[in-house]
């Protein structure tokens, strides 16, 4: 076979994981979870935009925090989902873990991108520039985006899913070990160059009136993350099914 692992090994590998159970379970979960996330986010928006007071120091721009902070949390949550799933995939050889890790990456990357842009929009009125190298968390978020893009690029270039899964799992684990080191180095780099702007990203201690919208938005985003993860996992399982069908089809074709 042209570069494919032997047919039976790939199919047995996936057969063992018995995706049928997951597909049945997830098909019942997707719709309700989707509804739940829509409701929670709607409520969150209501409190974030209308029912909460502006900040005495930042004024209305504090409302950007209600999208920026949850996005940042989901960005990191996404990467930890990938790291845990990759560990499970490598240690327990459970292919559904690979599927979960691969499906989580684009969602995490999207939230990281959102965190970066909303962070820049939030900082702009204060710092006068769209990007502030002085803010260690924003810089670390940018590096996290690189890790995500690298992970997805690795999946995109290796055709054979079993080999790609193992390589991506190793990358995700190495990435997760490196994240604290990167974060520390950026903090240290920050103290080296005393940043001109005094303004710190998180601003004043979070007033109680802000906790509700922030909490709702974070919960809504998390439920949305899980919903999208399930949908993308189902798509990935179908994609592998298509691949096996094509292999079988070529094998059964005339004069294989």
């Amino acid at each position: 076979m042209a570069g494919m692992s032997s047919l039976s090994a790939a199919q047995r590998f996936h057969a063992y994981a018995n995706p049928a159970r997951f597909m049945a379970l997830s098909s019942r979960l997707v719709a309700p979870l989707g509804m739940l996330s829509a409701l929670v986010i709607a409520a969150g928006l209501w409190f974030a935009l209308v029912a909460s007071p502006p900040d005495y120091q930042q004024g209305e721009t504090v409302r950007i925090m209600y999208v920026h902070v949850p996005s940042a949390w989901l960005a990191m949550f996404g990467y930890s989902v990938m790291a845990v799933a990759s560990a499970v995939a490598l240690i327990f050889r459970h292919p559904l873990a690979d599927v979960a890790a691969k499906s989580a990456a684009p969602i995490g990357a999207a939230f990281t991108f959102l965190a970066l842009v909303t962070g820049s929009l939030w900082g702009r009125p204060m710092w006068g520039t769209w990007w502030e190298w002085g803010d260690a968390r924003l810089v670390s978020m940018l590096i996290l985006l690189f890790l995500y893009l690298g992970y997805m690029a690795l999946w995109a270039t290796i055709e054979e899913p079993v080999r790609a899964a193992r390589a991506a799992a190793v990358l995700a684990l190495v990435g997760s070990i490196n994240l604290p080191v990167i974060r520390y180095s950026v903090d240290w780099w920050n103290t080296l160059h005393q940043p001109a702007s005094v303004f710190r990203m998180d601003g004043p201690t979070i007033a109680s009136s802000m906790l509700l919208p922030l909490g709702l938005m974070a919960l809504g985003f998390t439920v949305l993350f899980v919903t999208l993860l399930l949908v993308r996992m189902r798509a990935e399982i179908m994609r592998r099914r298509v691949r096996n069908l094509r292999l079988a089809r070529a094998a059964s074709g005339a004069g294989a």
Partner: protein
Amino acid sequence: MTTSDLRLSARDLACERGGRLVFESLEFDVAAGEALVLTGPNGSGKSSLLRQIAGLLEIGRGQIELTGGDPERALGEQAHYLGHLDALKPSMSVLETIRFWALYLGGSAAAAQAALDDMALGDLADLPVAYLSAGQRRRLALARLAAVPRPLWLLDEPTVALDQASVGRLRAFMAAHLAGGGIIVAATHLDLGLGTAKSLRLGAEEMA
């Protein structure tokens, strides 16, 4: 498809690769409807001769001429060269591949679809090439010859990776080409059952 006075001839042909004299003072004449089978040990220059005819390899001394062909087009453009490599892209589907080569080499999209059916690849049309077996890839490469009518076929070990049924199909395919007044020059160990084929042994005289 081709005029009957088609003739491929070579006079005092020599080939030198990387300082090594592969063969020299080679002569042959092939008329329309005839086949020339190149035999000889590996490394005796069968592939090099085919590449020289196709214009893919410099001709050191001597010359090759196709008389009676299309004067405007170079010899290489009037020949199909089938080398060891199948020139297939794994991410492209079977149909996309044959359609590209048909369009690029001057054939038509309709002929491309027909060529797939001739090579029994019709039902694998939208399968990416990555999924094909070696035999199916070879047949897809051969389908290119059916899709674009060209008088001269230069085949380097065409039966490699083909199973019995496909070899039978290849023989009929080649016989039809000869019947249509085409010329075939093939390097092969397998008897292609071309009956009237002339044969040219390479490399033996130098050794003896």
